[in-house]
């Protein structure tokens, strides 16, 4: 049994039943799932959660669908890794990495898709669909296969090869659209009107889908011993994940799982080539102007972010900040995380680490804070970005002389100390 009381428009407050609706019929504002928190609080407990599955479904009481056998590949309960070596490099005190590269298809999208398709199946949908910058495509195709649903995935034509392969392999339909992600998204928004029997996870089922991201906050708090951190850094594509992470910490307190009311500063990370939210933050305005993206961080390349306003609002209300970093800084961020903590992130993770570094250097993120950085996708998905950046130290003949020569040359060129 779920604890959903209905859907509510974030703009005008009109209420709707918990059906396949994503925008308010009146003002087109986004619909948000509402829960009966008193009833949740009466059943939920730390013990009940800790006895649950090692996946997002341990938090089922705070998710918008209850199902004894959800559409599940094991999303969630990913490692929260103490990152002392990275903290030392950046001048931070207590830093943690939420390593969502460890999800079944290598990104946080498994959280939202598992929720979305479980709800879609309950609503009677047989076909799973989405507009995607790649990670969502991978996850929808995989979860649909798992659930025995047909899938229709639409992606921009210029995605990284791995993301295309990791979608196509599951046997569903994949359409590469000649256009940007925003073009794909618009096409899917229009298709939703023509194909109402398809569950577009991030369009007509988006209300439920988005709730899956709250589990990032739930896990972080549980893994910190049922405490909220002081500051989280979250990448911004549509802005949905950041908004839901902020909501997640509040809900834990609302239902009695946190002793103290959390005051988590939430900061956003964007790439300069697609930074509508960071630009609005810097200019101090509420108006988010759509942009035409141009960045290697393709999973964040959403020029017209649906939840941009809400992300901006969550950042400002929490006392966080939002910054944008260059593609060169993104690559540095990927290598810094890999070199210091042994975690290989995709370009979006590079955006997060580079923004973490930038905001720390600016004094926004402080060394007396307990900081968590969300690393949301695996580096194998975007290896192209690093093709000319990293590679073998040298190519050598299979002889001791050749090896010694190459080691010596490396010591000179990189100034690394001899081993």
């Amino acid at each position, binding site marked *: 049994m779920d604890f959903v009381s209905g859907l509510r428009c974030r*703009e005008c407050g009109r209420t709707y039943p918990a059906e396949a609706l*994503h*925008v308010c*019929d*009146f*003002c*087109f*504002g*986004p619909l948000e799932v509402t829960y009966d928190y008193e009833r949740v609080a009466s059943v939920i407990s730390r013990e009940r959660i800790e006895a649950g599955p090692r996946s997002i479904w341990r938090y089922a009481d705070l998710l918008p669908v209850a199902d004894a056998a959800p559409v599940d590949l094991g999303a969630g309960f990913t490692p929260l890794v103490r990152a002392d070596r990275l903290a030392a490099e950046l001048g931070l005190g207590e830093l943690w990495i939420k390593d969502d590269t460890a999800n079944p298809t290598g990104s946080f999208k498994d959280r939202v898709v598992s929720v979305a398709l479980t709800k879609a199946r309950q609503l009677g949908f047989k076909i799973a669909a989405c*507009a995607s910058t790649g990670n969502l495509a991978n996850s929808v195709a995989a979860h649909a296969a798992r659930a025995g649903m047909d899938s229709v995935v639409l992606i921009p034509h210029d995605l990284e090869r791995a993301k295309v392969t990791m979608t196509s392999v599951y046997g569903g339909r994949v359409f590469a659209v000649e*256009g940007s*992600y*925003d*073009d794909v*998204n*618009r096409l*899917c*928004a*229009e298709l*939703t*009107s*023509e194909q*109402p029997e398809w569950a*577009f996870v*991030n*369009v007509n089922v*988006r209300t439920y889908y988005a709730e899956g991201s709250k589990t990032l906050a739930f896990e972080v708090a549980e893994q910190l011993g049922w405490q909220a951190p002081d500051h989280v850094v979250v990448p911004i*594509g*549509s*802005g*949905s*994940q950041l908004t839901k992470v902020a909501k997640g910490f509040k809900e834990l307190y609302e239902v009695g799982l946190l002793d103290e009311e959390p005051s988590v500063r939430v900061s956003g990370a964007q790439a300069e080539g697609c930074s509508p939210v960071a630009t609005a933050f810097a200019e101090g305005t509420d108006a988010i*102007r*759509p942009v*035409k993206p141009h960045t290697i961080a393709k999973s964040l390349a*959403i020029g*017209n*972010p*649906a*939840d941009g*306003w809400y992300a901006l609002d969550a950042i400002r209300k929490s006392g966080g900040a939002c910054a944008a970093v260059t593609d060169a800084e993104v690559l540095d961020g990927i290598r810094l995380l890999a070199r210091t903590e042994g975690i290989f992130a995709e370009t979006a993770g590079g955006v997060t680490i580079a923004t973490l570094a930038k905001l720390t250097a600016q004094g926004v993120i402080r060394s007396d804070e307990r900081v968590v950085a969300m690393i949301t996708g695996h580096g194998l998905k975007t290896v192209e970005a690093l093709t000319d950046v990293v590679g073998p130290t040298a190519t050598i003949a299979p002889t001791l002389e050749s090896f010694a020569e190459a080691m010596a040359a490396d010591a000179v060129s990189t100034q690394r100390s001899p081993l």
Partner: protein
Amino acid sequence: MIKVRVPAQLRTLTGGVGEISVEGSTVGEVLKGLDAAHAGFAERIFDADGGLRRFVNVFLDEEDVRFLDGLATPVTDGQTLSIVPAVAGG
């Protein structure tokens, strides 16, 4: 005539029809013409100041009119205007 594509959320105003032809020389005129033909469109897609509501996207053929001249963008016969809910994706 300009062809206007109407999303499912607004088809209660058109008797379920998803495509309507309207006269007009700018995006704004076409949308007002739509309201004249099917009362109720204006309050749904315009805000109190007469601009597009922030969660309403309007595309002239392939392009978001916010990248063009907004409601003042000129339109010519044969073009298609699409009204699309902005909340999608990501």
